[in-house]
């Protein structure tokens, strides 16, 4: 399974985007706060902390946060 996911990631990394490039003025929607990958970093950090302390998995969105004795 993870090999398949590595394949997808590497393909995405190498392949780049097949979509037609947008003009600068077409970035209007993408520039909105709620279109950001993490629109609310504070809430995201609180949630990740809760899930990390209550489940056997972690990570995926980035690298390293603060450690915690909760897990």
């Amino acid at each position, binding site marked *: *399974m*993870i090999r398949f*996911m*590595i394949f*997808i*990631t590497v393909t*995405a*990394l190498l392949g*780049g*985007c097949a*979509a037609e*490039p*947008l003009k*600068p*003025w*077409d*970035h*209007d*929607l*993408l*520039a*909105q*706060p*709620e*279109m*950001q*990958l993490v*629109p*609310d*970093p*504070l*809430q995201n*950090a*609180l949630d990740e902390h*809760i*899930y990390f302390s*209550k*489940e*056997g*998995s*972690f*990570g*995926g*969105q*980035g*690298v*390293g*946060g*603060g*450690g*915690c*004795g909760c*897990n």
Partner: protein
Amino acid sequence: MQLNRHVFIRGALAAAAGTALNGAAHATQPVDSWKVDSALLYYSEQDRVSVTEPVIYATRQVNEDKSYTLHLIYDSMTGATPNGAAPSAQTQTITSASGGSLTVAPGKLPVKSFSDHREAFGIDWTNNTSRLVKRSSSLNVSKETDYASLGGNLSYSIDSANRMSTYTGGVGVSLDLVQPKGGAPVGMQSIAVTNTSASGGEGFSGERKNTVDLMIGTTQVLSRRSLLQINLAHSLISGYLSDPYKVESLVDTTGLPTGYVWEKRPDRRNANIFYTKWVYHLPEDVIHLSYRYFQDDWGIRSHTADLTYHLMLPRQLYLEPHFRYYTQTQANFYHTSLPDWQALPSYASADYRLAEMNSRTAGIKLGIPVGSDSEVSLRYEKMVQRGNEHPADAIGTQQSLNLYPGLNATIMQITFTTLF
């Protein structure tokens, strides 16, 4: 985050047209401004732990290319947490060498009361090192009564010349110290015997736990309305990875406890994580949908799906329903208890977080603008965890007991955000 939408959009449009990073993944805050988020989180489990957590995030936009964020977090935790011992068909008394004694009624899950607090401080820096390259780094420290952590990370993001793709690579390191009172117990030894690790006792400085995270990823603009992020991460954790407060029951052929040993986990853990997120702008609303696949060499495989729907309402109000589903397999050394007539395995843990289980979260958030530069948001969520209540390896009388009582938690949060 609806705050000061017009200011953000104006800044981001300028960014998209020229200087700052791709409009795809970067909202700009006005230069020379502070954005302060202050939140109070209340997390409460039915019959178990409750946590009160005030948090402040303050972001300074120094100029068009540089910003930094300071975080300050205080956790106050209190309540009862499962100590690992299995429920028993008869009253059981769990007595450790340190003198602690716990009497548990038949069929009840043994829990240990505790109270602790945690202070954490962090700083993130972000700056554009050239027209297409952004560097992000952070430093985090935290301290609990029996745990300390020092962590840092560094990542680079490079935009393609046409701003349709961003490629990211990062590394993070965390150096932690596990400092249980009286020393860290030796795994798989009886809790009735005084025995801590070599570094325990007088002057015990703690056991080390180190984490290294590596990540590569890409974000692609799929269209004017959509984005796709894909990340691949690897984590290596080494050192003292056992929970110094958790025990494992030894039971006889009838399923009744005859003793308890400290749990023990391997001293290394390798994890691979695949993460993808799709963001789509409907005519008015925005959908965030993510999926994560996690696997490690402890035998845990998990799937996580997460959906947030940002529903725009009149007067710049918004509602955000949120759903999350999580499911995992058990670690290969997870045992609800061990048969006392067999030799002890090298590793064993009855920690419910290493069991086969699933977790569902549903919640809603309401955002209310206050003036032109501030916002209040209220969030309410429920989290329910369920596992295998009657595992196949239950022994004798255990077969009629609920060996995974599950968890019901409520999450409430109020946040005030302002820009000045």
